[in-house]
């Protein structure tokens, strides 16, 4: 509790409190001038009453909100507590301010109790309206500032994620190795070199633009995976075989671009590359009720079962967490990705998405 308090009473927040106080005082002066001009009494007592009421309201509400805000990200108590705070603050300001004003003018304490009904009503009304207006003004100002901050943060996160996505997809090692192979093919097998260049071309085009598009058809996704696997199979030769199976009725289903790419990269890097004889990658899609199931299976070395408490590989993990994150943001799926041991050794990554009809 005490560290929550010291967090809420940060110099930053206290500066805001002070600023609110100064403008509250200014607002009170305006009311006092208005009241004395409209003939409700001498200007000095009006200033004293108005300032006393206003500043007590301000102190109670502004400091109270910091105490009551607790751990919330925005320094304003949630729900009924916020409303109650304003009511309590205005009541305290009204009573306290009147007591101070009465003491200063030498009138009997709580003189307003003997006011005529009209005068009492207008005094209360002025206090309540002024209090609510000021509170609402600062509440919405603070809220929009808070939201602006949140939006900036979210945008930075999104930019970060896009950059990371691009980096993983355009792994320089992959690119330069592909170019090294291309260089060989140009001399020895020009038609194959041209075919490889075309694959590289379409892979790069989707990689560079795909990180911005929201969705593309599953058929396009499979084609890009085919490009990538073809490039890899030129590099790995007979050590990499692959199969892509997409039922016709699922061709048009929209999916986030290159959603499966990290899974295919993992299958190669952690499954087939370490295996001397290589193996096969099978990518498939099927419908299960109202869900789309996508599978990337390899016949590689299989999941390393690490003992509990071991630290994950420094280079691994990003691909999987990236797929999970994209599933969560695009579909709200918290549990859409599973890794299991494949039926014939190796690893299967299974994705489940809702199918919108």
């Amino acid at each position, binding site marked *: 509790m005490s560290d929550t308090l010291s967090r809420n009473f940060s110099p930053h927040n206290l500066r805001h409190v002070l600023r609110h106080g100064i403008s509250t005082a200014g607002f009170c002066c305006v009311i006092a001038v208005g009241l004395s001009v409209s003939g409700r009494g001498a200007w000095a007592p009006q200033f004293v009453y108005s300032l006393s009421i206003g500043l007590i309201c301000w102190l109670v509400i502004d400091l109270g909100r910091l105490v009551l805000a607790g751990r919330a990200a925005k320094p304003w108590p949630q729900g009924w507590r916020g409303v109650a705070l304003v009511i309590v603050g205005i009541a305290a300001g009204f009573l306290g301010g009147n007591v101070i004003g009465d003491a200063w003018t030498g009138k009997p304490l709580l003189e307003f109790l003997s006011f005529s009904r009209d005068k009492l009503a207008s005094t209360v009304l002025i206090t309540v309206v002024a209090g609510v207006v000021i509170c609402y003004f600062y509440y919405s100002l603070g809220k929009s500032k808070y939201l602006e901050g949140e939006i900036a943060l979210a945008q930075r996160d999104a930019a970060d994620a896009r950059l990371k996505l691009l980096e993983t997809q355009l792994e320089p090692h992959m690119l330069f*190795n592909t170019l*090294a192979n291309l260089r*060989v093919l140009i001399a020895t097998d020009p038609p194959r070199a041209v075919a490889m260049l075309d694959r590289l071309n379409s892979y790069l085009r989707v990689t560079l633009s795909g990180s911005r598009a929201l969705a593309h058809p599953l058929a396009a996704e499979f084609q890009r995976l085919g490009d990538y696997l073809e490039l890899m199979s030129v*590099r*790995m030769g*007979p*050590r990499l075989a692959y199969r892509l199976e997409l039922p016709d009725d699922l061709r048009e289903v929209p999916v986030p671009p290159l959603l499966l790419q990290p899974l295919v990269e993992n299958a190669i890097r952690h499954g087939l590359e370490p295996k*001397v004889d290589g193996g096969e990658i099978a990518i498939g899609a099927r419908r299960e009720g109202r869900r789309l199931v996508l599978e990337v299976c390899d016949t590689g070395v299989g999941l390393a079962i690490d003992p509990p408490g071991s630290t994950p590989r420094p280079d691994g993990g990003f691909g999987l967490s990236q797929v999970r994150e994209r599933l969560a943001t695009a579909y709200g799926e918290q549990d859409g990705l599973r890794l299991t041991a494949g039926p014939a050794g190796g690893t299967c990554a299974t994705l489940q998405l809702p199918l919108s009809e």
Partner: protein
Amino acid sequence: MKTTALIAEDEPLLAQALRAELAAAWPELDVLATVADGRSAVRAALQLLPQVLFFDIRMPGQDGLAAAAELADAWPADEAPMPQLVFVTAYDEYAARAFDAQAIDYVLKPVQPERLRRTIARLQQALEPQRNGAAFNAEDALAGTLAQWRRVLAAAGGAGGLSGAGSAAPLKLIAASEAGSAGSTVRMVPIDEVLYFEAADKYVRVLTATREYLIRTPLKQLLPQLDAGVFWQVHRATVVRSDAIESVHRDEAGKQQLTLRGRTEKIPVSRLYAHLFKAM
């Protein structure tokens, strides 16, 4: 007399390209075989006894470094001189930077003819004494070649881009799980009690005079954190406390083994590190 070579490279097109570039730049070179993984490389090298090895670093199964380290011990030095070792590596691998920093020859993927010619010139120079056979001292040649292998392997194997070797203070305590406790008990083992470290499968065994512990940090990451004057690597899998070494024996086959004060087992010494125990 033709010079013989072995290529170990897992990407078939790149292997083919290296072969073609070598044929163009060094016509007298006879590439005896091209293999695609580390274990095949060791097998083929021991069978064919080539004079030059071109080993890719990233290979499936056993990588180029492990293959070379195994080969260093298994090589029949009395039948054929130790081969010249050249690693093949992509530009972005840690090893390429380490080789550049230490002016060690290597072959870059994709092959750059100009660079390859430089490497070939140096290889030819190194092989010259064997070729004319004059005033050729086999023992000195072996020591020279081994020193070169050590240099290449140390550069390529460095802590995988982990800088700060030697910059951090040496470890004083090792948090290790007790052998047999399945990781449930962790002990803080004072480094002064450790007699040797031995890599075993996925773990490194930490041995004191009386106990055995396990850690998961690989030996090559552990090494930079140890005081190099105190702990010596004597084998790709073993690092021993130097002042605990009692004796070093050479068996009939020429293999060295050492014993430590406080331990009874014999610890094999790799040929790569035998220079540490040459009588003064």
